[in-house]
């Protein structure tokens, strides 16, 4: 048995939710356990460490989601999630993306459909927290050509929720479990921009026009393509750009990327 094969089989075993007898016996055959006739206990420690480590990382990210689900449910769903979504990045901080989508697909919480939306918001907040520092464009909005692409800072994330989640999240962040109530999660669309204020994640509710402009811009559309695809007026687009400038969301290096100086 080569070291490569041994490591492959061992880590695949760790990531198997419910290993069958054949797989268990195969893995057990690699080991001697001087204390026990069966190395079952030792293997359990390694399998437990994997779950403990990954769920621990998710608890750091999904603080409000965990409260909304309750501890046992959070552990249950996280456990299922990690077996379906093994970690592939050596950086543990990168683990847990897509948990919101995963929760949205779970039958058990269809009646609590705002929880996946909260999870998506918390993932965006985590990314904003760990985003590298990046200077914002300041001063006046430069001439933006029709074929230019605006670039937002890497920390800027968009969250579109089918439920109102911002007020409850803000209440929880400020006052903990006393800061929100279930009635706050009305089924009403909400558009949020998550961004980093010198390292501190912030959430700003925005209107539909601004969300549309930012979404299309982040998809790499030029100003003229954006106007064509959305039907928004050039004035709408410029107003949206202006707002993002004032918020400090535009990357400072944006100007160097201007390709067309015909003003819109």
């Amino acid at each position: 048995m080569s070291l490569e094969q041994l490591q492959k089989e061992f880590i695949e075993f760790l990531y198997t939710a419910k290993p069958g007898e054949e797989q268990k016996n195969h893995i057990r055959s690699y080991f001697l356990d001087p204390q026990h006739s069966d190395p079952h206990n030792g293997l359990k420690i390694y399998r437990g460490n994997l779950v403990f480590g990954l769920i621990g990382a998710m608890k750091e990210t999904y603080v409000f989601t965990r409260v909304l689900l309750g501890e046992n449910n959070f552990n249950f769903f996280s456990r299922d999630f990690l077996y379906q979504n093994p970690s592939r990045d050596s950086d543990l901080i990168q683990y847990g993306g897509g948990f919101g989508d995963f929760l949205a697909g779970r039958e058990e919480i269809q009646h609590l459909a705002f929880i996946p939306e909260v999870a998506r918001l918390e993932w965006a907040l985590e990314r904003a927290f760990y985003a590298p520092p990046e200077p914002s464009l300041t001063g006046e909005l430069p001439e933006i050509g029709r074929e230019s692409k605006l670039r937002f800072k890497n920390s800027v994330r968009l969250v579109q929720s089918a439920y109102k989640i911002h007020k409850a999240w803000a209440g929880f962040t400020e006052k903990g479990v006393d800061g929100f109530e279930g009635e706050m999660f009305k089924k009403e669309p909400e558009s949020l921009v998550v961004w980093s204020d010198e390292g501190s994640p912030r959430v700003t509710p925005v209107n539909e026009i601004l969300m549309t402009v930012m979404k299309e811009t982040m998809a790499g559309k030029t100003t003229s393509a954006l106007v064509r695809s959305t039907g928004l007026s050039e004035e709408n687009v410029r107003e949206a750009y202006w707002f993002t400038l004032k918020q400090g969301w535009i990357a400072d290096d944006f100007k160097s990327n201007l390709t067309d100086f015909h003003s819109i």
Partner: protein
Amino acid sequence: MGLRSPHLSGVLENKPPVPWFEVMADNYLNQGEIPHRALEKIRTHYPLTFHCLGMNLGSTEVLNDSYFKRLSELIERYQPQWISDHLCWVGANGLQSHDLLPLPYTADAVSHAASRIQQAQEKLGRRMLIENLSGYLRFNQSEMTEWEFVKAVVEKADCHLLLDINNIYVNSENLRFDPYLYIDAMPVDRVKEMHLAGHLRTEGILVDNHGSAVCDEVWDLYRYAAARFPQVPTLMEWDLNIPAFEVVWAEAQKAQAVLSGVSHVA
């Protein structure tokens, strides 16, 4: 002492006379500003060492260039006294366990791990410390004892050794060997740091969870090690159920008292 987030503000406010802080470097490889702000303040008052989890030195995967690049940037920024990681693997076949997984004690594994440590040292431009692992299983194919394996790797890689005394004790109980033989076998000139920590006893197995005070048996083993490796700085690890700073500091001072009180018997 290990630098842990619950203690950060107190350390910055009170500036206790801790000789140095060990930083879990992997927690700072991302570039978010807030964690670095606190660490920069700590660095102005204390020497740092970096303890790593992600070099994946025992894995058969290619060394992660991105990891080493970010680590090198972190080293440049904070100028740690030394850098350590474990004699283990954490990921393989594209999957990451984020846990410290054991190697079989074979001649092939010695060559493999030593070669990888040499590559890591070249990437970082310095000699590293390698830590012995806690373990719960022993591979059938092992051809030597754990202490023979550790010694062979550090000598072949020409690296230093971070000797974790609790890990030796945990393994000696789990895998049934004499921990004092282990200490005796370690090359004195390569041991540059020691670790102490608490463990958990569960279902007949000791788990290295760093979640409690050091037990009497580990203190006894430490006294023996401190006599064999005099003046080797010792770090107190406490990562789970982290108590008040003063509790961990008291344990660290106890270790210092042992170091100061022993005579060289090796």
